[in-house]
């Protein structure tokens, strides 16, 4: 059943293919024109990852969730499919970003030997995974928002949620500073250096899991 839902969303997204190719070409050109080459993978990862959420707008336009609920599929499967699509698109986008940045960077170094860009694979990998974490964080907030308020309203609510989270984050930071708690920065840096990327990936999946649980709770009793 999930396969059928995925197919429906992928067919919908296929109508985006021209825009997507144009965006990727422009990103490629932007990468060529700048020394901040590592951002290429982040930007492409974000675009591809976020485009997957536009399937919610297609569903809303055709009121397709109402129809889908008449098919032999459970509400759990409907929610799960959206996460599979979002996670799949984010991973694919990040991979694409990583490969394209590497490829374009090397081609440019070959074409412009007088202006060689130093591409460090470790830094590129770290930036890509950092971007992937960012996308997963946004998606994890946005998907439940859309299930709760719909594709259009959900976007506004998402910014409110992001703002509140940023506020809480700064608040916690401020409190730690004010309370005089000492944080061993050197130790923290060492942990991040050794396990940082693994921790970010693990954290992404935990965030997605919590978000899925919240979305299912919202959608379980939603009336279409």
């Amino acid at each position, binding site marked *: 059943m999930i396969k059928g839902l995925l197919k429906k969303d992928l*067919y919908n997204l296929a109508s985006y293919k021209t825009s997507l190719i144009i965006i990727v070409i422009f990103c490629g050109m932007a990468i060529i024109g700048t020394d901040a080459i590592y951002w290429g993978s982040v930007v492409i990862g974000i675009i591809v990852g976020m485009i997957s959420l536009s399937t919610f707008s297609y569903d809303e336009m055709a009121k397709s969730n109402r129809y889908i609920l008449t098919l032999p599929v*459970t509400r759990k499967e409907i929610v799960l499919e959206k996460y599979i699509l979002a996670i799949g698109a984010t991973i694919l986008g990040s991979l694409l970003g990583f490969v394209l940045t590497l490829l374009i960077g090397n081609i440019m170094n070959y074409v412009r030997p007088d202006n060689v860009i130093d591409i460090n694979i470790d830094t590129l990998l770290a930036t890509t995974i950092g971007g992937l974490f960012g996308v997963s964080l946004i998606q994890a907030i946005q998907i439940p928002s859309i299930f709760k308020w719909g594709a259009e309203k959900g976007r506004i609510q998402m910014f409110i949620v992001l703002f509140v989270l940023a506020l809480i984050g700064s608040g916690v930071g401020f409190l730690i500073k004010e309370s005089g708690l000492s944080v061993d920065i050197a130790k923290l840096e060492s942990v991040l250096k050794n396990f940082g990327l693994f921790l970010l990936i693990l954290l992404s999946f935990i965030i997605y899991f919590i978000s899925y649980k919240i979305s299912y709770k919202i959608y379980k009793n939603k009336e279409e």
Partner: protein
Amino acid sequence: MNNIEIKDLSKKYAGFLLDKISFNVPSGAIVGLIGENGAGKTTTIKSILNIINSEGTVKILGKDSKAHEKEIKKDLGVVLDDSFLSAYLTPKHINSVMKDFYQTWDENKYNDLLKQFGLPTDKLVKDFSSGMKMKLKIATAISHNPKILILDEPTSGLDPVVRSEILDIFRKYIEEDETRSILLSTHITTDLEHISDYIVFIDKGKIVLNVPTLELLEEYGVAKCTKEEFSKINEKDYVSYKKGKYQYEVLINDKNSFKKKYGITSIDKPSIDDIMLFYIKGER
């Protein structure tokens, strides 16, 4: 045997109450759910399908519709007036998607139906006319050979030729296997006079009439009488009346007994629309 059994189905919205409605859809029958816009037809269908949460019990093919939801939905074919998979899919895509939902999906049947309806396979649904869209929805709903068809306003907004084609499809669907059933909501009641076996009439969230269509068309009548004749009619012998400028029009549900009892011979055969109007607008 009943393919669908609905008991005390209730749903409350601000300003609307679907009030403990009960009715059955027997095997081999086409049941027409009629009523004004906003009477509760779509709410009833959405409740049967668990698209909305309602109170009461719904049994489909003998099983509780909530406890065995996924299993039951394999045997249902549904057409909703305002909702479908996506406008950005082609009939070919729909075939590919639906194959994954139903093990019993019959690709040949689907393609034959598309051919029969003259529907292109590679055109996006958004570019279809209303009639084409409805035909596609119906082809999609019946191509896994469901035991029950549930259709919400399948003929609204369509011209008479397309409507007649669609009604033929429903007739054929039942003829193919007489254990099948159709529950069909509509406000175009003339369609039902030709194909339905039972009429369930909902008004303001309540069932006011649940009778075989034949009984409705053969036994109901509109008697035309003078004020004096009307004053002699016992309240129990009529459903409702309309007071005209020169005469009274009285809806009766047993025209033969009425004729004998009161000797009034000017009795017209009402359409389902007329009967609906008497129930909604008539006086008691």
